[in-house]
């Protein structure tokens, strides 16, 4: 039994050493770098994301939840992918109705009135920024960033970033954020079978 075990283990380890890079290639590589803002401005909540440069990727079908307790959308800012659905859940303690709507040109919708305990849903087919509101309550506002792919990360302040498991191919790195004075440059690069590092994405004043 011991004589059979040793060669089996050796073959297994050899196969693992040979296949590991291939497996890593099939599962994607990490992409990392740093974000620099002109003038050193401490921009809050930057979303770094990847867009496929010359091909499309399968549409996402995830579902995200936004609650409405205390007459607030929570989370107030959410990042989702094209094809995802958002469920707006009225989990108020009292009998308080909410209506969720958006006037965004790429994603205009009105979900009607949702009573306590109800869930209203909307699917987002197009990328873009969406501001949405409750027509009943004046301080209820939320924001969605709908990205072209699920490869993204959120930075609280400018600095280092890392996006994991990026499939091989040609990609464009972009950033979006809440401060309208600034805009992001873009960076095109290729992911092969090695990690991509030392990217520098600049965010500049308009």
């Amino acid at each position: 039994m011991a004589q059979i075990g040793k060669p089996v283990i050796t073959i297994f380890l050899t196969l693992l050493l040979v296949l590991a890079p291939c497996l890593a290639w099939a599962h994607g590589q990490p992409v990392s770098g740093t974000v620099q803002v002109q003038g050193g401005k401490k921009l809050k909540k930057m979303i770094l994301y990847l867009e496929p440069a010359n091909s499309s990727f399968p549409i996402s079908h995830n579902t995200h939840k936004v609650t409405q307790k205390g007459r607030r959308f929570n989370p107030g800012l959410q990042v989702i992918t094209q094809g995802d659905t958002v469920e707006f859940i009225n989990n108020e303690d009292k009998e308080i109705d909410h209506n969720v709507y958006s006037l965004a040109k790429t994603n205009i919708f009105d979900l009607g009135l949702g009573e306590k305990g109800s869930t209203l849903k909307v699917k987002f087919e197009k990328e873009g920024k969406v501001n949405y509101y409750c027509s009943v309550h004046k301080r209820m506002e939320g924001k969605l960033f709908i990205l072209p792919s699920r490869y993204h990360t959120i930075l609280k302040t400018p600095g280092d970033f890392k996006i994991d498991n990026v499939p091989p191919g040609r990609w464009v790195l972009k950033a979006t954020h809440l401060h309208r004075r600034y805009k992001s440059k873009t960076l095109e690069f290729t992911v092969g079978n090695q990690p991509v590092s030392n990217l520098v994405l600049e965010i500049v004043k308009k």
Partner: protein
Amino acid sequence: MKSIRHILILIMFALSGFGCASVPEPSPGKGALYGTLKAQSHKEFLDKQSGESDVGYDGFLGGIFYSEAMVNYPRLKNLYACLMNPAHQGGAVHALEINGSEFSIKSMALAKGDRLRVKNNSGLTHHLYLTDDNNEDGFQEYAPIPPQSEQDISINLEGDLELNSEEDESLRMHVHSGKGLDCQRLTSGDRYVFQDLAPGNYNVMFWFWRLGSIKHQVTIKAGQSRLLNETLSVDRVIH
């Protein structure tokens, strides 16, 4: 209680009869456009309140009681009735103040080329800038406005815009700008009048930043006063 409520409603109705708005008289060879602009809650919300239900927002005189947290549609300010009039040139001056972290007006519709006379009542110098909601490259910046001073800034972009300050991210004003837009600022229920219009076809827009816009095309004839009432609500704008 119900009978008192009915009596009060009758009294208010009778009093309102004395204040009936008259039809504007246009000048010879000209026409006029007039009407009332209102804002209203979502239809489903209104339908629910008119139904028999223990759960509602009943006001003392009937109707809806709007709490502090709610959008008070019958009293909503900064609604705009706008006529797209090629004869209307930009260049009008609109007063605007910076008070702490707020602009004195939260939203404004105006003609491209109009100016905002900004009075900075805060303790900060403000570098204001204008961006376009639908075009990342749409951008206009202005010279800094020191504390306790006043400056005119010109609106040279068109579309749905936002006026912000580099120094204070909570300073925000929604702007809708268009070529030849002749706008009147109203509170819900107010009357608007566009007098002495040359006969022809006009585009009319009713707008509030949080409700969007409803547009019409009207034909004005000489000697005619055309009535156009409108109600802004989420369901009317979107559906």
